[in-house]
């Protein structure tokens, strides 16, 4: 029985190749060792009902579902569509981010002109906005907003402005999901 040198040589080549990959990568990255303890956190910034929250809406601390309307050829504005309450004793940073919009890429989209989400501070000054606009059958949305500091024990608002083109078909619906990211 002879030793299979050819096979051994292949395995040694594989080992050397692995070492080479690891070495080259190691020149680009380095690692920090971290031990993690996971604790269920508190939702310090939470959704709350506001003056213009429609009665059919569902609001929990971390999620909300709003049923809003849009009018043909006119703006419809919900100045205080939903509140964002910072229940923490210090500043928290928040931002608005697009998650999904549907339908998109199909004919019903042309029944909408724009839907704009504004982040208002407690004096109703606009701090940031996320704008959805249509072109033909497609939606486009502005990029994720910058982080904004919401002071301790303060309520801010999300204002929503809707607009549909003249002759829009009543009953047509679209769903927009946005995220309010909160820095821990």
């Amino acid at each position, binding site marked *: 029985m002879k030793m299979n040198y050819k096979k051994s040589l292949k395995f040694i080549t594989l080992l050397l190749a692995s070492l080479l990959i690891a070495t080259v990568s190691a020149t680009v990255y380095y690692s920090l060792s971290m031990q993690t303890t996971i604790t269920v956190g508190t939702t310090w910034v939470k959704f709350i009902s506001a003056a213009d929250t429609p009665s059919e809406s569902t609001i929990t601390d971390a999620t909300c579902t709003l049923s*809003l309307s849009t009018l043909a050829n006119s703006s419809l504005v*919900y100045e205080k569509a939903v509140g964002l309450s910072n229940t923490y004793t210090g500043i928290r940073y928040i931002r608005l981010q697009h998650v999904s919009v549907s339908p998109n890429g199909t004919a019903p989209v042309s029944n909408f002109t724009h839907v704009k989400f504004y982040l208002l501070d407690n004096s109703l000054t606009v701090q940031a906005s996320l704008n959805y606009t249509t072109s033909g059958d497609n939606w486009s949305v502005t990029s994720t907003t910058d982080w904004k500091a919401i002071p301790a024990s303060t309520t801010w608002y999300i204002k929503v402005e809707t607009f549909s083109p003249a002759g829009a078909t009543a009953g047509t619906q679209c769903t927009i999901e946005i995220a*309010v990211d909160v820095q821990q």
Partner: protein
Amino acid sequence: MKRIAKQEIFHSVLLVLALLILTLNLVHNVKSTVYYTNLSENYQTVIQPLIILKNDTNNVSNIYLSNTSAKISITATSNSATYNYSLKIVNNNASHWEVKLEYDDCIDIIHVNTTIVLHNNISSLWQIKIEGGIKRQNDTYYDLADNATIHIGVQNLVGISSGTTILHTYLRIKTPNKTTYALYEITFEFKYNT
């Protein structure tokens, strides 16, 4: 046989070592997130307007598609004239609203003087005044009762100098005690030739 077994063990060790090196290398790519996300889902439904605009008995309005915007065109004369029924605002539902006219923009307001009012044949409230090239706005809401109709009146319209005055306004329709409102675009066009 012993040699073959040793050789197999040797190959296995080499393979495990290679895989271990590659796996450990992947650990460098782990990232962590430092924020959580609250999600807001919003349903937008196109609805029929509960309040619509209609041409009124003075027949000076052009109503646009969907009945939520209009243009009022009147030719002024050197004598003061009043058009109390320029445009109808019709509330088609059993809800109470508050309405007011808001100035948006204008072109050449020097050609006429006039006062624009909201009225229901019993009471009236002035909304915008143009006098000597200066415009003023009342900024006070007027009631639009359940299933009621009110009117836009153009009062004391008088030509001052030749030309066309354009006044762009919004009719703000607000739910009482709320900050939800709709904006209907209403344009006034006043022409005057000496």
